[in-house]
């Protein structure tokens, strides 16, 4: 009789386990496994995304660096250019000023020379008047005087 009692108990226990114990536990486990595998997949995806982003960042950084180098080179060139231009202009200015100074000096010299010549002529005429001690007809001898002046 014990045998039958235990047999019935066994069947009842197995049925109870099958109905009320196994399914919720197994479902919970499987759902969690699903969740974990989803999580792992998401993590992997995120890592891949991160790698892509890092590669993109590196690319952009490289580009930016190249651009910056270009800009710096341009700026340097422009600065050199402007310095060169300033130098050139300064030189030009200097030459202009020197030329103007020389021209002025020349003009002054010419003027002085003219005046000197006039005074020398006058002195020569006065000297000549004194030497020949006679009045020279200004009208008759002006041509000689003119000639003299021109020769000086």
């Amino acid at each position, binding site marked *: *009789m014990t045998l039958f009692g235990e*047999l019935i108990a*066994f069947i009842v226990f197995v049925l109870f*386990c*099958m109905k009320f114990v196994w399914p919720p*536990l197994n479902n*919970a486990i499987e759902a969690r496994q699903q*969740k974990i595998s989803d999580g792992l997949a998401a993590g992997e995806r995120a890592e891949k995304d991160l790698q892509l982003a890092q590669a993109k960042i590196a690319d952009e950084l490289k580009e930016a660096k190249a651009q910056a180098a270009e800009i710096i080179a341009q700026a340097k060139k422009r600065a050199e250019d402007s310095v060169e231009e300033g130098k050139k202009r300064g030189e030009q200015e200097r030459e202009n000023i020197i030329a103007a100074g020389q021209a002025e000096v020349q003009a002054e010299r010419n003027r002085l020379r003219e005046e000197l010549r006039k005074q020398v002529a006058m002195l020569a005429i006065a000297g000549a008047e004194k030497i020949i001690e006679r009045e020279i007809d200004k009208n008759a001898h002006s041509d000689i005087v003119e000639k003299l002046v021109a020769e000086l």
Partner: protein
Amino acid sequence: MAAEELTLQSHIQHHLTNAKMCNTEAGIAFNKACSEAGFWTWHIDTLAWSIGLGIIFLMIFRNAAKKATVGVPGKLQCFIEMIVEFVAGNVRDTFHGKSKLIAPLALTIFVWVFLMNLMDLIPVDFLPAFAGWIGATFFGMNSHDVYMKIVPTTDINMTAALAIGVFLLMIGYNIRMKGVLGFIKELTLHPFSSSNLFVQILLIPFNLLLELIALVAKPFSLALRLFGNLYAGELIFILIGAIGLMQLPLHFVWAVFHILVIVLQAFVFMMLTIVYLSMASSESH
């Protein structure tokens, strides 16, 4: 010396006797009055302990199942899920094909048998002595007439009931998967077969004999293996318990070894159940 041996013998005898209940002409009778009842005896200690343990198992697991969450599990749920996953893994590896029954069956067998075996680790005199005290105090019985065997799996009725349950399932699976005719064919046309019709007919009785023995041997081996292991273990616990103070280290060693045995026996019973049912539901040998 003779008297001492007698008491030792009766002590062991006492430990290995179930509490019995039966119907006699005079009505319901207990224990010694039932010695004539034979098979028709109820072993009330076996029944009470096994069903009690089964209910404890189902309550704990039901409790965990009701609260089972997909999110972070609690400690109880973790523990229960470890067992469930262990059983589910074994079933997946061994049983090919779909069945809603196999996994819960395996779980029930594993945990239930384990719990019943676990009773073996309770020191052998505790509960019987307690039961004897109750019997003597409240029912006016001689405490030596109160029997209490607390390990249900040391009762051949218990293990046989489990094995018969599995055996019925095996036959059921055979018939469900192969049909009645297919089942009969498998019993009669293997392992010896011939293309000659006459020889084939001659071979049928041999095949039937072999296959029937193979079939029936399975539940027998299941029942006797579990019973034998646990009975022997219990007997040694009782013997150790009878040798006085020296029992302490011995008992410890045997108990540690027995932890292995009870888990292993529960596992073996579960595994073999799965294997037998897998064989029953697969097409060919």
